[in-house]
């Protein structure tokens, strides 16, 4: 029980969430539409940027999982009151949070595996790049899941939440250099975009895959920012899950 964390039952709850999502398979498919459309546009307009866009699609899809956590956590709390069923049970609040976040990760992974397969065909990744990709995607999941879960607890109706979901996705997934190279960002903005978790992840993976070179200082900044954000935010997510399991 490191840090007093209790995980008993969280695996079952995670499996429950996966099962719930798999019954809504159309949502899993439609989640690929935005990155899929961007991939098609780039393939037509600037084919040489396609590998970067594919990596961007992977990062974006991972960030999108956080928005699915937001919607799912809000839906089962506001519409179904199932959070009360689980919070008044031996399943710990951290197990509940990680169950939703992990369930979304696994259920929505298959489309990303298809994108990864296309990337492998177009631009095979070396072991370092694969490792960087896996670690960075995991970090983006940790960040976005926490943001999603925390935002889900702040409102009392679904309609208020929907705009935040769209806002966060665009703010983190579309605006910064996720689908396009870091080199296109004006130099004075670079240090800012390197601390944004999504663009930091994209920059690190692009560099590891040999798609775009970045200065060692920039790589270190991006790596440290992403690692710290993932660890601190995920820790905060657990703290927040415990705090909001009981209203004040």
């Amino acid at each position, binding site marked *: 029980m490191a840090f007093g964390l*209790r995980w*008993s*039952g969280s695996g*079952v*709850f995670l*499996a*429950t969430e996966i*099962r*719930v*999502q798999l*019954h*809504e398979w159309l949502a899993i498919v439609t989640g690929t539409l935005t990155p899929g459309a961007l991939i098609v546009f780039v393939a037509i307009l600037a084919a040489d940027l396609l590998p970067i866009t594919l990596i961007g699609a992977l990062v974006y899809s991972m960030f999108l999982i956080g928005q699915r956590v937001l919607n799912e956590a809000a839906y*089962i709390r506001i*519409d*179904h*009151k*199932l959070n*009360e*069923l*689980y*919070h*008044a*049970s*031996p*399943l*710990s609040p951290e197990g509940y949070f990680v169950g939703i976040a992990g369930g979304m990760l696994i259920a929505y992974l298959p489309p990303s595996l298809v994108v990864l397969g296309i990337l492998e065909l177009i631009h095979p990744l070396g072991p370092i790049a694969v490792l960087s990709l896996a670690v960075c995607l995991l970090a983006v999941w940790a960040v976005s899941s926490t943001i999603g879960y925390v935002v889900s607890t702040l409102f009392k109706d679904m309609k208020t939440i929907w705009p935040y979901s769209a806002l966060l996705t665009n703010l983190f997934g579309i605006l910064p250099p996720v689908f396009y190279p870091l080199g296109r960002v004006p130099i004075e903005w670079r240090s800012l975009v390197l601390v944004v978790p999504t663009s930091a992840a994209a920059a690190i993976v692009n560099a590891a895959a040999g798609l775009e070179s970045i200065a060692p200082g920039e790589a270190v900044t991006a790596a440290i920012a992403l690692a710290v954000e993932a660890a601190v935010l995920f820790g905060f997510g657990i703290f927040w899950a415990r705090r909001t*399991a*009981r*209203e*004040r």
Partner: protein
Amino acid sequence: MTQEALRAAEVRKVYRGRMGPAIEALRGVSLSLRRGERVALLGRNGAGKTTFLRIASTLLIPTSGTIHVFGLDVVDEPERVRPLIAVVPQEGKPFFHLTPREQVYAYLRARGIPRDAARTRTEEALGKMGLEEVGDRLSVTLSGGQKQRAMVATVMATESPLMFLDEPTIGLDPFARRAVWNVLRDLTRKGSTVLLTTHYLDEAEALSERLYIVEEGRILFEGTAENAKRQIGGTLRVSIENGGHQRDLFESFGHTVEEGDVLHVITGPERIHEIMDLALRNRLSATVGPVTLEEAFLTIVGRSIDAE
């Protein structure tokens, strides 16, 4: 573990709204439940019933006061309390994209109940709640009553030592309601304790061994349904058609309540002849029946409203 399943002492809850004024939902509620008891919490909408249930089930922190569940403080030791309780939330719904069978089983497994026991209890719960035929249909395709039964089945299958049920039979047909009552009786026979809220007073009377009436965050009454009925000054109700405009004539016989064109007089058997005679002399038609818990509830809460 103590013989008391729950003891609440002077529980207060003030909701401090960001925009509006603070709302005092509970104003010093004290109550207790013995092990194996079925107790109903009655009150008007907004009386504080759900707030109390949410505090007792570790979902809400009180402003002051204490609640102990089997001797454990719900505020200080929620992790130890939670394995002992289960909750049917008000207006709770099952996962729409799970079947009732999946829902009940998954919940039991998440509570740490071993696979075989979870399977057995799932089938038992579905059977008792009349859900066998729809057990493998996605909940989204079920009727409102079937969804509610799936929620109740989920919680009852836990066989937890203490269960909180917030309006568990809302939207259920009379057969399904009785199925829930039977399951609750079974559970308490096996040793579980049940605290439920309901607006169906026939349900409270049929099901609960004791009841508490809450109004504006305070307990107005504690006791059996029979005690509640006795409190209002009689065991019989005389209903007089078009008696409202002659209320003065009947007020001396006991507590009177007007309901549309009908005047109800709550009285004792010793005055029945007298009151019926008076009604006949005034060419009014009158019927006699036993006082119901609903009348007792209306009178007890009504007195409190008048006093305010």
